[in-house]
């Protein structure tokens, strides 16, 4: 982390960048927040550890409108989002100085608390430099431990890889964290009967509180004004009613980001009700792979997306009927 801080200070001092976008230490051991650093003394609170899950690419949409370059710290998975945003002309590459930061998997405080660990006072083992595979957690109710892997976000278990897809320089080592197949969870749902699928999603989506956190954190949701925020939308779109969440909001959102979603997993990370929203997007990705050939959104900045392109090899629309 010190190397990252030193380099950021250097680039700020020599005028290469006007500000640094990273994470500021929180007031609990696990709640750092995305933050801008503009002065040398701001860096006192700079932090980069296992709890820095936030994908800062989304913040670069606004930062691209600011005067001067913004140094942004991106993890390998965040760089896919950044590439995709370049492709969609939502961020300005010239306004970004990207430091690709190493990642050994990001932690999910909800998982830690889900193990019954509460009254947390301090956590060791979450630092990016720690080689430890175990988190040691001091709590008001005694010392607890859990394995780093068990506390990782779902997305880290199906990590797309250690490689940064776009960067100006790299700082820090990354670790392979993948220990599961990305599409297994989708296949498991595909194997269900229609009734089971419906019951599964109904149960999950009925928890939705329409807070829009999934949408607002999503790098693919970059519309200046979302259709669901329109006051001319003649529907009960603002009400928290099952009919809307279960049949409209999340489905429409999944359709809208199809082909552009990089599977960064932010939607599921931020959902206050723990809804596995990424499953929708991942289903689309799996289908796109099957219908149009392997495709990873955000892999590059200039290829044509499968859903915005036409080739004679494209699958015929009737495939849906044939597939049942």
């Amino acid at each position: 982390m010190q190397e990252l801080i030193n380099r950021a200070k250097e680039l700020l001092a020599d005028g290469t960048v006007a500000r640094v976008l990273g994470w500021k230490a929180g007031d609990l051991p696990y709640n750092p927040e995305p933050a801008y650093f503009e002065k040398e003394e701001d860096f006192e609170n700079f932090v980069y550890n296992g709890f820095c899950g936030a994908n800062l690419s989304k913040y670069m949409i606004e930062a691209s409108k600011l005067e001067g370059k913004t140094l942004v710290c991106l993890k390998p998975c965040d760089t896919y989002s950044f590439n995709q945003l370049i492709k969609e002309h939502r961020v300005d590459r010239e306004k970004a100085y990207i430091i690709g930061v190493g990642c050994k998997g990001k932690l999910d405080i909800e998982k830690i608390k889900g193990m019954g660990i509460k009254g947390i006072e301090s956590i060791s083992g979450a630092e990016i430099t720690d080689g430890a595979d175990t988190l040691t957690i001091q709590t008001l109710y005694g010392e607890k431990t859990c394995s780093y892997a068990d506390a990782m976000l779902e997305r880290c278990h199906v990590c797309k890889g250690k490689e940064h897809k776009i960067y100006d320089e790299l700082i820090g080592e990354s670790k392979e964290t993948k220990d599961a197949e990305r599409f297994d969870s989708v296949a498991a749902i595909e194997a269900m009967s229609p009734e089971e699928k419906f019951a599964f999603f109904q149960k999950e989506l009925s928890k939705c509180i329409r807070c829009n956190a999934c949408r607002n954190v999503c790098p693919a949701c970059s519309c200046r004004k979302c259709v669901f925020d329109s006051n001319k939308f003649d529907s009960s779109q603002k009400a928290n009613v099952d009919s809307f969440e279960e049949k409209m909001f999340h489905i429409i959102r999944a359709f809208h980001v199809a082909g552009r979603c990089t599977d960064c997993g932010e939607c599921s990370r931020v959902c206050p009700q723990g809804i596995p929203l990424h499953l929708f997007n991942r289903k689309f990705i799996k289908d796109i792979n099957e219908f149009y050939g392997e495709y990873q959104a955000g892999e590059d900045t200039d290829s044509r997306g499968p859903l915005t392109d036409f080739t004679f090899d494209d699958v015929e629309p009737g495939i849906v009927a044939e597939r049942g």
Partner: protein
Amino acid sequence: MYKIAKENLAALFQLIAGSRELYLPVKVSGQVNFRAWSEDAEVDLDTLKTVKSPKDAFFPQSEDLYTCRKDGKKLTVEPEALKEQDFVVFGMKACDVKGVEVLDKVFLADPVDSFYAARREHGTIVAMACHEPEETCFCKVFGADCAEPVADVAVWMTGEELYWKSLTEKGDALTKSAESLLAEADAEDEKKVEEEKASIRGIVEKLPYSNLSLEGWNGEALNEKFNSELWEELYKPCLACGTCTFVCPTCQCYDIKDYDTGHGIKRYRCWDSCMYSDFTMMAHGNNRTSQMQRFRQRFMHKLVYFPANNDGMYSCVGCGRCVEKCPASLNIVKVIKSFQNQGGDK
């Protein structure tokens, strides 16, 4: 005081639900929220905080107000019926109960909100002491005592027993309806409850936020706080989602909307969030045009405007749900601390 063995709680819930609607913490797909009791519901009284606060029981996130129907030249307006059925909310915490006090100030003041008033009239609150408070809790700062909640009935869960103490007439009525399952507590039991209270208070003293100072936050601080340059910095990571407002036990803003049913209009209200771009939208447009202004509104409302209008009562109760759930890890504690660090007058 009465007591009941934990293993008999299922029978108690069944008994209560026989004569009243019963809402209590239920786990669905890994998340605990207040829901209506049913025989196959997975009741979870061990999880300290439900994701959403129980305020839905009195002020639901969405509710219909009335329906207009046009039939030829005849127009009929059918108001929704007010709550008439008695109900029990079991397992609210001291902070949640204090949240209802805040809502009372808003909805029971003139003009009285009849939908809310009917629910308050028919609702009985059974509040539970917090066996193991967590690091995100700061109810003490706002004057709540999670070791001894004040509601219609207060309960403590310790060891294998649940201890039950009625505090109001409504509480007495509920106790009476459940007395076949409640046993009289003796001096030994009273001692256990006192020990539990002492243990809870001991933990509260050790919580990291328990000594948070509210100095400088009051109804008189309006201009000084409103004009602070700090907001410009504090709001930046905010994603403008409504999580903090929707998990909050005191956020009371709502929007009223009309839904075109095709042959009439259904008028409903639903929680609004000051974080949303159409919050308090008027014909002339919106009087808060930036996210900084919307972000500032939330904290100014809780810590300055509300106390100014309600004899100093804050509209935060320190439940810590926003601390746990904000996707950008922002929260009211960080805001209060930031002003402290800056001397509060920057």
